[in-house]
């Protein structure tokens, strides 16, 4: 693992379905598939850990709380053309929680994976885009 690899864990309802979603819609590649318990998929510097109920990360807490998908924390999926990306994803049946928002730093929209976890599609404002 590269020192700069970033690991993020999402709880998911169905590991198979989640792997298909991240590979099919967002261009991830499968690193390890131990479905139905666990899978990891990679894209660039991100390793996304997809944990199902049967994974060690799916075990209940001592107070009985059960890990579950959802919430608002998310990774950013950076694109050059957010309108085109959203149109493509909508055409593929991807659900969104809101519409494109424009702020000083760029534009963003929240896509939902099949379990209801968020992915933030983000296009940096032209003034702030890193020189290439």
């Amino acid at each position: 693992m590269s020192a700069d690899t970033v690991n993020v864990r999402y709880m998911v309802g169905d590991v198979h379905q989640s792997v298909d979603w991240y590979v099919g819609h967002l261009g991830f590649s499968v690193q390890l598939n131990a479905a139905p318990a666990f899978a990891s998929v990679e894209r660039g510097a991100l390793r996304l850990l997809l944990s199902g109920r049967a994974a060690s990360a799916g075990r209940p807490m001592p107070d009985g709380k059960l890990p579950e998908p959802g919430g608002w924390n998310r990774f950013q999926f950076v694109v050059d053309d957010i309108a085109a990306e959203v149109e493509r994803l909508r055409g593929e049946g991807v659900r969104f929680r809101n519409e494109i928002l424009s702020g000083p730093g760029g534009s963003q929209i929240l896509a939902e994976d099949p379990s209801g976890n968020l992915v933030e599609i983000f296009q940096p404002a032209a003034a702030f885009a890193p020189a290439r």
Partner: protein
Amino acid sequence: MTRTAPFVLALVLSFVVQSASAQDAPGEPMRIRYIVKDVPASVAFYTGQLGFRVLGQAGGSFAVLARGGLQLLLSPTVGPGGASRPMPDGRKPEPGGWTRMVIYTSNLQGDVERLRKAGVHFRNDIVIGLGGNEILLDDPSGNPVELFQPG
């Protein structure tokens, strides 16, 4: 929200992008966003307890921290930034849930002891899994952070 807030945010973001492209080239940084109750308290926690450094901060409105290849965006539940706005159906962004960054460590037991002494709240005890050992702690807003030691 004040009229100056977007301008301050723009300055912060400009700084962040410049520093990111200068320091982290050639790879682009990987960013995740956490929703927090209090940006300054969160900045103090992540820098003081978990080894993050501040790339930029717009007071209580927004902050960007970095650790290795990770940039952590901290957005408040109420503020001028886009990530703080309610959804069209009325739902409001809030901290919590189970989605988290995973911080690798070579001394999980030692880190847990140090953090417990510092008053950090843990959701569970160390779990022995197939790939290694892990534990979940809460940031000041109740967002989870996973510490993981490969087995």
